């Protein structure tokens, strides 16, 4: 459904995407994962014809994005990172506009608007101006709009960013429902690792390069075993001691030391007995995608990059204030 070969996007003095390859199969839920500024939004903008690639081949639904952008546009739907509704219009008017622009005949438009509004439970608010909607309602309306014209692929750029956890879950319910009913391919970017678990396949991007691609299970297998996470007052000293005593690779993150071992349940008693540095707490876990990301890139996904700006965006969305482009 989507085929990307050697995609490069260079701005004047900055290479945002450094030659990536991607394959997304028909009907798949594909997650594009990475911290802010990793090149996710740039890539998605190129896939949906908003930006031109500097180099590389990109095709969506079997059509070359560079040569026939209009043909691609007719076959894709989009849910953007920031709301892109006209909030002075009603929900129905926004959908009318969309249907009209995509050339749906009046009868189809009417039927389809009713259908998609029902799908996201917004029938009752159909004739209210969008500016009175909450963030979650706006996102639902955008999802409804994105699939209204029966696209082959729906692109979602951070569809749950800035929403509270409950609303996030609801959005996911709608997406699953959508997939079941319309059978379309979903391509989404996110930096929420727990959401990536919902995807059938994932590509992890960091600093413009794809560092891994596969199913969540395949990726987790890369971590190779269990993860022990220990907090201590002197994490650095602890890491050095583990390194010395057990010849195990460690990673320090604030007051936490992470160690990967093949079999944690038998290893922990030995570890605790041997260590001289005082421990504060210890947790065991099966590897999560967070661990995969840390292993592959050497830093956590929600480090510095996803801090201030995200909070600002979330707040801005809540208060209806200025939003970043």
């Amino acid at each position, binding site marked *: *459904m989507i085929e990307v070969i050697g995609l490069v996007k260079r701005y004047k003095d900055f290479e945002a995407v450094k030659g990536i390859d991607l394959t997304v199969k*028909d*009907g798949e839920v594909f997650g594009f994962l990475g911290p802010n500024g990793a090149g996710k939004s740039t890539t998605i903008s190129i896939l*949906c*014809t*908003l*930006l*031109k690639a500097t180099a590389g081949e990109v095709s969506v*639904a*079997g*059509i070359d994005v560079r040569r026939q*952008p*209009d*043909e691609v*546009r*007719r*076959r*894709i739907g*989009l849910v*953007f990172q*920031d*709301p*892109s*509704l*006209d*909030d*002075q*219009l009603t929900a129905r*008017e926004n959908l009318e*506009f*969309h249907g*009209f*622009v*995509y*050339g*749906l*005949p009046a009868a189809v438009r009417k039927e389809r608007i009713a259908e998609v509004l029902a799908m996201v439970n917004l029938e009752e608010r159909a004739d209210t101006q969008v500016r009175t909607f909450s963030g979650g309602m706006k996102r639902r309306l955008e999802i409804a*709009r994105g699939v209204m*014209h*029966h*696209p*082959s692929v729906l692109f979602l750029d951070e569809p749950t960013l800035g929403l509270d956890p409950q609303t996030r879950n609801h959005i996911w319910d709608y997406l699953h429902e959508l997939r079941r009913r*319309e*059978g*379309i*391919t979903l391509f989404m970017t996110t930096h929420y690792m727990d959401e990536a678990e919902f995807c059938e396949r994932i590509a992890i991007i960091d600093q413009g390069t794809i560092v891994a691609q596969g199913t969540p299970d395949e990726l987790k297998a890369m971590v190779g075993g269990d993860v022990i996470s220990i907090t201590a007052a002197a994490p650095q000293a602890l890491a050095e001691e583990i390194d010395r005593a057990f010849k195990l690779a460690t990673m320090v993150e604030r007051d936490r030391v992470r160690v990967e071992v093949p079999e944690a349940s038998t290893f922990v008693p030995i570890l605790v007995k041997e260590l001289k540095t005082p421990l504060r707490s210890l947790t065991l876990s099966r590897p999560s995608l967070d661990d995969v990301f840390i292993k592959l890139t050497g830093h956590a996904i929600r480090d510095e990059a996803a801090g201030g700006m995200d909070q600002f965006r979330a707040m801005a969305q809540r208060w209806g204030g*200025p*939003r970043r*482009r």
Partner: protein
Amino acid sequence: MESVGQATPRVESRPAGGRAGTVGASLRAVYIIWYRDVLRYFRDRFRLVASLAQPLLYLVIFGTGLSSALRGTGAGGFGQGAGSIQYVQYLYGGVIGMSVLFVAIFSAMSIVWDREFGFLKEILVAPINRSAVAIGKTLGGATQAMIQGLILLVLAPVAGVRLTVESVLLLVPAVFLVAFALTSMGVALAARMKSMQGFQGVMNFLMMPMFFLSGALFPLNNLPGWLFVLTRLDPMAYGVDVLRRVVLMGSGLPPAFVDRLGMTVNGTVISPWIEVGVVAAFGLAMLGIAIASFRVRD
């Protein structure tokens, strides 16, 4: 309509509607973009009413004030006896031009607003011709500016101007022409503008100079050389002159007198038809630039 290349039967892939390249699809796009602008305009009743405030201030306070001041010097306007008008009557056509200018630029700047608040993306990823987007936006803004200009006709009594059926019928296309030309300019500017900050610059370095040089406030003859030249370079001046000629048609003024208030080059009065041509050519050139800017993809 055939379905997508490797689509499996499970994926019901019906690419939307007609081809983006066809004339029908483009006209449809122009229409819906125009329609959205007009819908938003009428929905904003407050703005409709508020936009009458500034023209009223100009006519009632500025116009009356200057008329009275001139009367103190022995004149209350321009000309003498039967061939004379009050300053406020002179001002009326210019105030219509001013409103058209402001609404035209503001509505074109809504593109920047849409860009900042996302809606522009919805338009740009749609399978429609980018030229249609530029044309739809221009016509949408021009319609708003025209309606605004025509609403001001209710203020004719305030300005002491007598309108006839004929002059009103002529004003509709005249106001639309000026509105179209100025909106094209606005859209051409807004097409590549990334943030609302640029709007300050447009306001101070373009809108206000165009307004002051347009002859809306004073006749453009007997001016110092440098000012004379600048006014002739202002495309809006030609438009304002046409508007004023039509507005004053019903006032029973001798044509020679109206000519004297109008634009001259080398002492010859420019025919209103040439003025119409200048405004139309300017508008089309700007629309061309607007279309070209919309077609560029980064």
